């Protein structure tokens, strides 16, 4: 894009008729016209570059904003929330002076184009968001969705994504403690690679992305800026894939986890010495984003000399420098007298750091190149005043037919033998099978604070060695449920993550989300999005868990085919003493297994309907959030008071899936009896929400059932932990050996 003469502000004003490549940069005609209107002249090439990336769907949330407002409007009153939506990540008070920041983001499009680097830099980006809040990152989680497990392209994408997440996260020294792996043909051309991270800090260490104090220096530190990732946010993440267009591979960034590890240590050391006034990481939209956000959130303006940006490639044009998404870079605002010490710390960690500008007392963001002014904008217009679309949305005409195609009417197993075969098929199906082959490529142990990691219901990290204070996180989402009913589907995702946190004994506090959908330009997709957001906002309000931030990923669509609407919800919880955590595994023979909650005939969107009938239709399970709250309270009390030794949430695959997992992890079987009023099929395979199984030591049985009775939670004794088989009395029996083989061999056979 380099042009002669240099396209300065002055030059732009003098040459109003020069045509700029706004369409190639992803802007729409009316958006470009708006830029001209804001500036009162045509933009310079550099200004156009900034607006094009900052006004992209990925950075500006222009299609989703009008709906996302509900998260603020319906936010429940919560004393725990220290920093809400709008910053790099939300911050939650977990007590004892500690604060926790967490967030989930998407790196879907790059991970399809270039699985290893796409996934790796997804981890890098979310971790920098956490550091930018002032926190030490303590764990990561990775909710992943791929195409059909036996599709040849899945064998290209999945191993690359998993190796990328491992390669980056392991090298940063962050334990990977949770997430999901889901297969469905709808994700074939649009895998979902979401990445979440948690960080811990003291309350007084919270940092924000703002540039205040005229004369303060703007320091760019970390990796040099190269030509990678140019247009990542705009032309890659904000458009659908299309075979007719050229490869988007050059828009994917390349990660260097070693550099990021140095960046973490050096940033935390600078925080410790209180050298930083404001800080922002460079992710999507790179320097365009960092400078415009820092300046617009602060009290003054900012002047930047682009020539001072350390480059990997000296031929880069100013536009390219502004748009580059080179990884492992951060921008700090530092008082002049502290700059020396800041640079010393960077030097200690061999991190390149350069003063590239300063905060001014004006209100403009001015950027210079070779002594000439190439950007002169009000930073708010770039960072916050992007276009907002009220995209048309409409319930798709096929929704009624889909819901009428009732999964409860599918043929059910007629004999015990048939039921047994279907159970075996279910636990071996790719979605229900053990994901050990994947998760063992991630380090769970580093930092020495991991209390629980996958396949536990939630990951749990000790925060304080003395008191045992800990935090738990679970991420869940079920695109099949959401396709049947996006409002309920989003609430089911929330309910499941909430339940998973409570199952391990932690109290759910706050929510982050990653909303993965197709093209917002399709009214049907937009309706799914609007419904899901409404469902999630209503659900969070009812459960008292505010949304602290998150991410929207649209355009997950190839041609006309959109993915299932897939809201992924992360719930963060706190536990006073991690010694009281409840694991999934059965612990001791003779303990009594109780089923908590009500079981109804609910098979819409179920794993059974998918595995046995390749069917998706009907309605998803009903949601009762008050029941979820009661169940959570019981699980937390029982864990705190030592009434249960293991617990497992019931979700996809139903009760039998949960029992098999608890048995295999504990190496002890179970004998179950079908309770009165239920048939064996519904008992084992229904996916009714608001349920969990717990193992109760006999000495605690009365205390436990009394508590459930007094609180009005149905608790049904369904069996006992025993032996080396899973036996359903009067139906069938499966040895642990047989179950283990079925459950653990599927994924390696498909992918190793």
């Amino acid at each position, binding site marked *: 894009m380099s042009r002669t003469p240099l396209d300065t502000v002055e030059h732009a004003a003098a040459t109003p008729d020069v045509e700029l490549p706004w369409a190639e940069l992803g802007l729409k005609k009316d958006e470009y016209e708006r830029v001209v209107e804001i500036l009162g002249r045509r933009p310079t090439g550099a200004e156009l570059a900034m607006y094009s990336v900052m006004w992209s769907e990925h950075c500006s949330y222009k299609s989703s904003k009008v709906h996302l407002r509900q998260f603020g409007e319906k936010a429940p009153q919560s004393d725990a929330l220290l920093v809400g939506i709008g910053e790099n990540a939300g911050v939650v008070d977990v007590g004892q002076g500690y604060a926790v920041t967490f967030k989930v983001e998407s790196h879907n499009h790059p991970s399809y184009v270039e699985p290893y680097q796409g996934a790796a830099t997804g981890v890098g980006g979310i971790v920098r968001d956490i550091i930018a809040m002032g926190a030490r990152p303590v764990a990561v989680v990775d909710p992943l969705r791929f195409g059909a497990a036996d599709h040849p392209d899945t064998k290209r994408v999945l191993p690359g994504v998993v190796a990328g997440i491992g390669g980056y996260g392991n090298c940063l020294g962050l334990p990977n403690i949770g997430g999901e792996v889901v297969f469905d043909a709808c994700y074939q051309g649009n895998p979902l690679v979401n990445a979440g991270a948690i960080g811990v800090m003291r309350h007084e260490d919270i940092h924000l992305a703002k540039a205040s104090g005229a004369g303060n220096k703007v320091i760019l530190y970390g990796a040099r800026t190269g030509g990678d990732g140019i247009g990542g946010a705009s032309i890659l993440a904000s458009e659908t894939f299309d075979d007719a267009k050229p490869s988007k591979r050059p828009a994917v960034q390349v990660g260097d986890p070693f550099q990021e590890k140095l960046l973490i240590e050096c940033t935390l050391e600078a925080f410790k010495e209180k050298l930083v006034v404001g800080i922002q990481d460079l992710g999507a939209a790179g320097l365009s984003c960092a400078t415009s956000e820092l300046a617009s959130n602060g009290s003054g303006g900012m002047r930047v000399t682009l020539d001072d940006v350390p480059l990997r490639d000296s031929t880069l044009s100013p536009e390219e420098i502004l748009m580059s998404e080179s990884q492992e870079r951060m921008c700090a605002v530092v008082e002049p007298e502290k700059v020396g010490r800041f640079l010393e710390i960077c030097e200690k960690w061999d991190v390149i750091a350069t003063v590239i500008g300063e905060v001014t007392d004006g209100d403009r963001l001015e950027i210079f190149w070779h002594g000439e002014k190439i950007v002169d904008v009000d930073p708010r217009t770039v960072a916050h005043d992007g276009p907002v679309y009220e995209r048309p949305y409409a319930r798709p005409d096929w929704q009624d037919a889909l819901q009428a195609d009732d999964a409860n009417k599918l043929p059910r197993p007629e004999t015990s033998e048939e039921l047994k075969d279907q159970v075996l098929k279910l636990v071996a199906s790719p979605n229900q099978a053990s994901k050990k082959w994947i998760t063992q490529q991630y380090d769970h*142990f580093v930092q020495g604070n991991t209390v629980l990691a996958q396949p536990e219901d939630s990951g749990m990290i000790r925060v304080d060695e003395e008191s045992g204070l800990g935090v738990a996180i679970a991420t869940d989402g079920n695109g099949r449920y959401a396709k049947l009913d996006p409002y309920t589907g989003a609430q089911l995702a929330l309910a499941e993550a909430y339940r998973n946190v409570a199952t391990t004994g932690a109290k759910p506090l706050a929510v982050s989300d990653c909303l993965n959908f197709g093209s917002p330009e399709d009214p049907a997709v937009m309706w799914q999005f609007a419904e899901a957001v409404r469902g999630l906002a209503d659900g969070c309000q009812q459960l008292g868990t505010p949304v602290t931030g998150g991410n929207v990923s649209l355009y997950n669509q190839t041609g006309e085919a959109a993915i299932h609407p897939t809201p992924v919800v992360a719930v963060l919880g706190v536990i006073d003493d991690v010694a009281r955590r409840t694991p999934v595994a059965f612990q001791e023979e003779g303990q009594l297994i109780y089923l908590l909650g009500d079981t109804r005939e609910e098979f819409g969107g179920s794993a059974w309907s998918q595995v046995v009938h390749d069917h998706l239709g009907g309605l998803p399970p009903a949601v009762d959030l008050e029941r979820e709250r009661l169940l959570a309270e019981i699980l937390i009390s029982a864990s705190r008071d030592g009434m249960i030794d293991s617990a497992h949430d019931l979700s996809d695959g139903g009760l039998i899936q949960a029992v098999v997992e608890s048995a295999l992890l504990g190496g002890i079987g179970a004998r179950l009896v079908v309770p009165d009023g239920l048939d064996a099929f519904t008992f084992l395979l229904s996916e009714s929400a608001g349920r969990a199984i717990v193992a109760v030591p006999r000495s605690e049985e009365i205390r436990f059932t009394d508590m459930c009775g007094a609180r009005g939670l149905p608790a049904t004794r369904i069996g006992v932990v025993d032996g080396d088989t899973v036996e359903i009395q009067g139906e069938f029996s499966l040895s642990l050996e047989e179950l283990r083989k079925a459950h653990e061999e599927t994924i390696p056979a498909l992918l190793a």
Partner: protein
Amino acid sequence: MTARIGVVTFPGSLDDRDTQRAIRLAGAEPVALWHKDKDLKQVDAVVLPGGFSYGDYLRAGAISRFSPVMDTVIEQAKAGLPVLGICNGFQVLTEAHLLPGAMLGNDHLHFICRDQKLRVENAETAWTGDYRAGQEIHIPLKNMDGRYVADEYTLDKLEAEGRVVFRYLDFNPNGSLRDIAGITNEAGNVVGLMPHPEHAVEPLIGTGRTDGLPFFTSILKKLVNA
């Protein structure tokens, strides 16, 4: 009295703070050592922790071996200073020729993280006195480049001299020759292993086992009784 045990931080070290914690839990005093500093601060023993020093972009440990701190470590190890290299630290020790052999990428080409069963083959080294020879223990393992290799002559020599300290049991996680998980030098003061004893020191954390704690109590006893 107690012992002062240094833990070196290289750029890209990951388990340095965890190792300091393990030393503290064993009752010794951890001392942070910095890779650019030749001064060992008069510690009684040194641990080179796990991680990806310098990103392991060259060969694992190949650059760290030339850090200023390693000049002193190599010199003093030859004079008898107890040195333990864990994972990346083991790789650094082979690169520094304090231990024979080398580490290659895992034979299956994936990173692997698991609770690994080991047999203690030598309970006579500075770091293994609190184990029994033949004892079976579980220690977390997590690495990308953990395949121990050496020529036949060296392997035979290690076996003959009882210098194989740990062997993988039931499952060889990386293709290491003769299932070797850890070795020692002739004097028994330098030990390197791939699994991470510092991640098996607390009953609540990680795999919930404490089979790794004897590493740190062994050295403490040896230093205090010396």
